[in-house]
């Protein structure tokens, strides 16, 4: 299996606070990594750096051997390029961030349509391309179990349904790596299952994913690899079974013990 993502020596500070300290990890194509750790450990900031919503102070991000970002090489920091590089990654937010004025289907289609409009052949095959995008979006929503909900607006959907629309919206752009930022944290407990189930299905289809989550059982179950972060550093990473059952580091043990107590 080939390495798809390489993250090397990422550092990030906000004002005086160091949020990420020398964070490095890699991810193989088709694999899933779960990132666990308490609030404020830097998990979300790491995802935001990968999606170019934050710029790290130091470090390198490579996807399929292509250097997307190298803080030592200003040529990789050009604003105009960043937009394209972002498309390598998808991001599903904790709070969904669906566009309220569009239906579920329109939410999924919008970005894809705007990108298609930039293609030279768009004017020639406009109808055809739009049909293709619509068919793809419908298929994705069906896959998310939302066949009946496509024409509903976000405020007419439950949180779990909204999050599944958001997943379809991210998938529509076919990112190399799909990132989840605590996808179930904003949901009522009875709605987390339906979202976790679709993520599990994506994992079974070998979608490369990075999942930041507080759902420990899920993190363990879905991932090929677990990363435990604390205070901006990766304390421990490895096979989920190993990390959860035989953590080597004291901090990991303490964190997991706190979770078991509930």
């Amino acid at each position: 299996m080939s390495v798809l993502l390489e993250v090397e020596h990422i550092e990030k500070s906000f004002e005086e606070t160091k949020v990420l300290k020398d964070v490095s990890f890699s991810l193989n194509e088709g694999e899933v990594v779960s990132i666990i750790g308490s609030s404020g450990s830097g998990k979300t900031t790491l995802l935001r750096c990968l999606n170019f919503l934050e710029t790290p102070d130091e470090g390198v991000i490579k996807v399929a051997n292509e250097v997307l970002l190298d803080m030592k090489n200003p040529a990789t920091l050009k604003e105009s390029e960043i937009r394209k590089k972002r498309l390598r990654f998808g991001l599903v937010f904790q709070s969904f961030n669906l566009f309220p004025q569009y239906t579920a289907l329109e939410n999924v289609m919008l970005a894809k349509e705007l990108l298609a409009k930039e293609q030279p052949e768009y004017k020639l095959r406009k109808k055809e391309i739009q049909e293709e995008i619509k068919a793809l979006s419908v298929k994705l929503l069906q896959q998310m179990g939302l066949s009946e909900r496509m024409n509903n607006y976000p405020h007419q959907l439950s949180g779990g349904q909204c999050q599944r629309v958001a997943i379809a919206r991210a998938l529509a752009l076919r990112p190399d790596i799909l990132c989840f930022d605590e996808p179930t944290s904003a949901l009522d407990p009875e709605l987390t299952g339906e979202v976790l189930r679709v993520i599990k299905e994506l994992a079974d289809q070998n979608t490369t994913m990075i999942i930041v989550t507080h759902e420990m059982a899920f993190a363990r179950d879905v991932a090929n690899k677990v990363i435990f972060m604390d205070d901006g550093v990766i304390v421990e990473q490895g096979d989920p079974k190993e990390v959860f059952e035989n953590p080597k580091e004291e901090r990991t043990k303490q964190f997991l013990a706190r979770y078991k107590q509930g």
Partner: protein
Amino acid sequence: MELILEQMPIVLPALNAGFIQTLKLFLVTLVGALPLGLVIAFGAMSRFKPLSLLTKLVIWIVRGTPLMIQLLIIYYFPGLVLDNPIWGSGEKGRFLAASVAFVFNYACYFAEIYRGGIQSVPIGQEEAGLVLGMTKTQIFFRVKLLQMIKRIVPPVSNEIITLVKDTSLSRIIALQEVIWAGQAFMKGTQGISGAIWPLFFTAVYYLIFSGVLTVLLGKLEQKLEYFR
């Protein structure tokens, strides 16, 4: 009562003519101030500090002083102090000066409403657009604009209803709007003098006009209720 009915055929056309002038000032103000407000809002939100400070100073002065004084200064200052009557004479000059004062005053109020509207769209909307590969321009027009409009329609409607009545302030520079037309029958015109009822009756014009606007703006608000 009999007298009023007798005077009505003379008074109504005069009030109607005055109301046309009121309506003109109202429309010119909206057409000018709605877009100008957006420019001022962007000025106030500019990351270039001198520009945003200057804009905020202007907004403070305009919103912090009575529109009536602004009208007086704008109309009389060039002619009486600078000896350069740029507005020209007669009703045309008065209308021009009143338009400038109203457009500028209302643009400042709209600017603050727009600013609130723009800043109230959650940052997550922009971030969602960014990670989907949209440009900032696409995000503004395709994602944020309608959400902004939805948020600003109620406060803008409020200002518009206020504007209906504020147009009467232009009476202070003798613009021949509906109040001026009603008052004329007190001093005496077209064979009627000492009649106060035409002045009181102008209130009916404002009431009907603001009523119509309330219904129309309410409809617009309703149209945007399909999303939350």
